[in-house]
């Protein structure tokens, strides 16, 4: 009698081509980051007199950070605060709405559900850029342009997030669980918040990450909505600093634009590192028949 050995999992063979391809993709995505890191250590003069992917003689990173935070009366911090506000209110609100909507569409049968499905799928196909000008005209009629609302309200709606939550809720929450909860006399609200939300967490984090990145990087919408630099997000602010170099009599501050860009991506990196374990644990949902 032989004891059954551990089940042997067949591992796919190592492919040299695949390794090389992923290696190229890795380099392609890392080079801009390395460039940013290296060049944030250079002074304005050093930027022009040294090789782009290696350090200049002077190490000016700390000076650059301090100057970035102080330049123009410290407006960088104001822009950082604005971006955080847009992300918290916009991406946070978008995630909440997508969760509620997706759950409702997945788990409740009502008239017009197919119509909603068609509209959402259609909306995913329309690029935000195409809607920017009509949105601007609508918001200017409402008197909301040049206010933070003009950036926050359009960010609240993410057809893609709604669709993702809808599909995720349909898979992650068994109908039997809802029926059991209802039999036990739980109200719909209680069912949602105490039973379903934990099950939906991986989907929620995914939508949150997507809408956070979209709101954090949003450029075109604030560009046409906002004229007051006090309400700029970081994207517009850094672009305004960059544009200074292209003005008669303007002061080029390339070193501050680069250092500012580095500081701008740090919070996003932190968010990904903190949230990724919630996100990963959900990727297998529905992948295995239990």
């Amino acid at each position, binding site marked *: 009698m032989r004891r059954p050995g551990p089940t042997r999992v067949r591992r796919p063979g190592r492919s040299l081509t695949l390794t090389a391809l992923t290696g190229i993709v890795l380099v392609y995505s890392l080079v801009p980051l390395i460039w940013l890191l290296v060049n944030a250590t250079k002074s*304005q*003069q050093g*930027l*022009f*007199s040294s090789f782009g992917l290696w350090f200049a003689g002077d190490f000016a990173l700390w000076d650059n950070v301090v100057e970035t935070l102080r330049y123009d009366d410290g407006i960088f911090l104001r822009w950082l605060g604005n971006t955080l506000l847009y992300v918290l209110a916009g991406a946070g609100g978008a995630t909440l709405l997508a969760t509620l909507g997706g759950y409702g569409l997945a788990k409740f049968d009502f008239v017009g559900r197919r119509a909603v499905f068609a509209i959402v799928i259609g909306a995913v196909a329309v690029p935000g*850029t195409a809607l*920017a*000008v009509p949105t*601007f*005209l609508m918001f*200017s*009629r409402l*008197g909301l*342009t*040049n206010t933070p609302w003009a950036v926050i309200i359009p960010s609240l709606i993410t057809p893609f997030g709604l669709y993702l939550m809808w599909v995720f809720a349909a898979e992650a929450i068994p109908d039997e669980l809802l029926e059991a909860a209802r039999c036990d006399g739980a109200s719909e609200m209680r069912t949602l918040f105490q039973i379903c939300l934990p099950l939906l967490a991986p989907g929620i984090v995914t939508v949150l990450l997507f809408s956070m990145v979209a709101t954090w990087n949003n*450029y*075109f919408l604030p*560009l*046409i909505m906002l*004229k*007051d*630099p006090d309400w700029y997000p970081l994207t517009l602010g850094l672009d*305004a600093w960059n*544009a*200074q*170099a*292209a*003005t*008669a*009599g*303007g*002061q*080029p501050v*390339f070193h501050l634009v680069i250092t500012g860009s580095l500081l701008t991506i740090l919070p996003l990196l932190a968010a990904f590192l903190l949230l990724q374990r919630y996100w990963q644990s959900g990727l297998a949902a529905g992948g295995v028949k239990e």
Partner: protein
Amino acid sequence: MNGTISRAVAVAAAATLALAGCGSGDDPTDAAGDEQISAADVRAALQAGGELTVWAWEPTLAEVVTGFQAAYPNVTVELVNAGTGDDQYTALQNAIAAGDGLPDVAQIEYYALPQFALAGSVTDLTGYGAGDLADTFTPGPWSSVNTGGGVHGLPMDSGPMALFYNQEVFDEHGIDVPATWAEYVDAARDLHRADPQVYITNDVGDAGFTTSLIWQSGGQPFQVDGTEVSIDFTDDGSARFADTWQQLISEDLLAPVSSWSDQWYQGLADGTIASLATGAWMPANLISGVADGAGKWRVAPLPQWDAGGTASAENGGSSLAVPSAAANRALAYGFIEYANAGDGVQIRVDGGAFPATTAQLQSPEFLGAEFAYFGGQRANEIFAESAGDVVDGWSYLPFQVYANSVFNDTVGQAYVSDTPLTDALTAWRDTCVSYGTDQGFTVS
């Protein structure tokens, strides 16, 4: 790539909105035209005070605002950088079309002013006292704001052209400073032959530069009479420019670098771009953006089309204008008069700006200023002489912002392919003619 798309959409949006603005913007214009505001009204408004929003990107204006608020403590000025150049015009067109969020004062470059004046989007300031200021300003900028049958802004700065060159590079390769454009082409050849890394200048097709050089050569490709416009690049001046520049393009003697890019600053700093023919506002950019060039660069008069000539042209320069639908136009005029004709001018000159006023341009203090960056040269003497030699009779199109935005699609072809420059200019003309016709102009 994304930026290009956004920009294209923004330009398209601006064009659409400009059309909308022409249709519906008549009422506020008429109201503004009927209203007469005297100098006394302006003084009263300054004393009464209020709030002003100014859209401008000119850096020395911040100090002007401080001085203005000290002089008129009841006025609060909010200075907003709503974008540079085209970005700002798009925003302004949007605000005019939406009738909301308009500034009281806007910075508008001379080439763009006719477009706003013709649509009635900016106030005719003749009745406000601007009509008496003709002697205050040099002729070039003054004729630039005298557009569409009125004074539609006050000149803020000017850009009489000169040749900026890197003397160290010229000396190293034994090149003399060219006095004519023919010598300039020869210098370009010698320099590039001596060191293939080095170019005499950069150019990938720049509407402002092209029109400035045609202006200097006496060409008048744009003729405007009310809504009747003619565009013609076959006159002698345009042809002379095209012939000369074609040699530089065909022989690959121009650095393929866009102006204002980081490579451009780098080229100016490391000596691979050896000269620039541009406006007198350039020293401030060299000093702050090309610190490595200190002591190496010099200024010379603009190369001439005819040996021994003194002709010059303007490049760049902008005005401050008052949108027709602005809330407090009397107060707004009070501000731009202070900034562009009053005490603000000296504040801006001290901050490094180049004036458009005769008093400052002729003052011994201004002319005698020695630029450490140019090795102690009295560069303002060259600039002031250039300002007096600007060729008369130039005008821009009433839709020059659009025309410049399609320059690279048409004339830009000559720089990247075998298309001759004259054909490319004809293609630019054709695009502008069809756009102008669509806008309701009679274009030939």
